[in-house]
């Protein structure tokens, strides 16, 4: 093929046989294109990498030289230490381990409560007949667009009046945060789970009904197992949303450090100890480690949930 001059038909066949991937690649793989991609990748990675390196350097080194200079010496890791992490987690003035636990305490119910309630509502909206169903569903969907700020002040007053706020309240004041996250998540959760459920073929439900199954049996025996991927997508989205949230925790936690998550504490540290990079760098990574693990291990679900939840809050 390489030496013989192909006839016209042969050329066409050759072009057609060439994989599209290769043509697309050839079209764009000029050195400039590669250079641009590399520059973007470096700019996007370097800030995080710099802070990560800093978190392992001794306090004195951080103050007197840039993190990149650690790589100019022959043994950059010679002085590396976990002391920053030790101090930021257990030091009495920062004590991030407490806040790490608070973050867990806040996040787990804030994911499970909306799922438990939304799964039931979504089933009713998808498979039960009752007057006003379509109107209610559209209303729930539409409330997704309410920005959290719009609900905050009256909701906070409501909590205070009902005795949910403060360290004397039931649950030590965590209920305000749990309830708020659950409420803000419901419209999205119901919408997502409803969409998923209504795609399940109607014959499946009908035949189960004919066989004498009631809605509760259909719900628990057929629906819940089928729902696993949708619940996972929503759960991961909500998990990261709550874990990374600052506004809800700040407002509904009422500034009480007893119930504050990592984000609130870190934001505060960034204000009061803004130049103590040995603390801030390690502190930032204490809060980043969980989202990074979730993201790297469950990337597929994460992207799906992210797209669906993109207008939330």
């Amino acid at each position, binding site marked *: 093929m390489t030496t013989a001059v192909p006839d016209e038909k042969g050329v066409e066949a050759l072009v057609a046989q060439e994989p599209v991937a290769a043509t697309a690649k050839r079209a764009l793989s000029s050195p400039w294109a590669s250079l641009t991609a590399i520059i973007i990748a470096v700019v996007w990675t370097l800030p995080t990498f710099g802070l990560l390196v800093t978190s392992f350097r001794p306090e004195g080194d951080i103050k007197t030289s840039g993190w990149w200079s650690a790589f100019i010496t022959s043994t950059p890791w010679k002085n590396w230490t976990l002391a920053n992490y030790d101090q930021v987690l257990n030091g009495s003035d920062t004590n991030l381990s407490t806040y790490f636990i608070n973050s867990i*305490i806040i996040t*787990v119910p804030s994911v499970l409560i909306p799922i*438990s309630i939304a799964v039931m509502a979504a089933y009713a909206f998808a498979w*039960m007949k009752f007057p006003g169903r379509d109107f209610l569903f559209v209303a729930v969907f539409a409330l997704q667009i309410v920005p959290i700020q719009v609900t905050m002040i009256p909701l906070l007053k409501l909590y205070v009046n009902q005795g949910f706020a403060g360290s004397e309240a039931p649950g030590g004041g*965590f209920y305000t945060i749990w309830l708020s996250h659950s409420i803000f998540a419901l419209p999205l959760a119901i919408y997502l789970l409803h969409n998923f459920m209504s795609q399940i073929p109607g014959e499946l439900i009908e035949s189960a009904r004919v066989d004498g199954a009631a809605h509760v049996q259909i719900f628990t025996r057929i629906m819940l197992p089928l729902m696993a991927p949708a619940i996972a997508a929503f759960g991961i989205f909500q998990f990261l949303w709550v874990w990374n949230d600052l506004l809800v925790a700040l407002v509904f936690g009422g500034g009480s450090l007893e119930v504050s998550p990592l984000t609130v504490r870190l934001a505060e540290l960034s204000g009061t100890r803004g130049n103590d990079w040995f603390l801030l760098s390690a502190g930032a990574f204490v*809060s980043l480690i969980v989202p990074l693990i979730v993201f790297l291990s469950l990337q597929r679900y994460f992207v799906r949930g992210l797209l669906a939840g993109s207008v939330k809050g």
Partner: protein
Amino acid sequence: MSTGEKFIQMLIAIAVFFAVVAIILLLTQRLRSRRGELIQSAAFILPAIILIGVGLLYPAVTTIYQSFFDRTGDAAVGFDNYKTIFTDSDQLLVLRNTAAWVLLVPILSTFIGLVYAVLVDRSRFEKVAKALIFLPMAISLVGASIIWKFVYDYRDSSNTQIGIANAILKGLGFDTYKFILNDPWNTVFLIIVMIWVQAGFAMTILSASIKAIPDDIIEAATLDGVGGLKMFRYITVPSIRPSLIVVLTTISITTLKAFDIVRTMTGGNFDTSVLAYQFYREYFNSANQGLATAIASLIFLLVMPIVIYNVRQMRKLEAR
């Protein structure tokens, strides 16, 4: 509260809500008649409807109502709070900054995300290359703010620099620059943080729709001698137009509501406040409920048309 007590409280909270669901399921499982089904469906949706009604609908309506009252919520003041937002010099600055955020973040992050998606498409390192850009999306805006505050760290030109941005400036022979303090450009440097976060979102969505462009279109264009930038301009961009719109509108909405970066990096000082942060500041620092609720209502008003447009585009996208 000790750690153990916290975990016990957490388990109680979860148990309470799971018990509600279990009781509803148990109580309604025998209902078969037509009326029974009505009761059953009411029981299924009631917990959600109550929570949404009390926690979203009622507060939203109250907020809009209170935006027509003064700072304590006692005397009606008509549209005065809104007038303040659009005439007071401090508030005008907030509007200026918000406009800069909402224009720059969606356009630049979509542009960078698109260019990157095209460049790494079908390359050997595609998966890793995409994960690198997407990673900022997974972390908190507080974390992102701290990462960038370190990049922008300022020291006088005569000292050793520890922030990489000023180290580069110094290396090129310029004076070091107070990225976070100098108005008005500090807003731009805060905006860069948001672009850094959102570009990954744009790239992921756009990359998926680039892959969905039918092969025969690209083939036909190639046979006609189209390539490189022309292919990008005349084939790629028109084919992914609906996704482009969804990405642009989604990022605008997120940006309008973003509050964490301003709070963490400057605390709204040095003329960097935006609407979402100003809401917080007016209520919690200035105790001005009227103005705070008016700002919240304004955010709502600005978000609404974008969301409606966004949802329509998303529907179209799903229908294809």
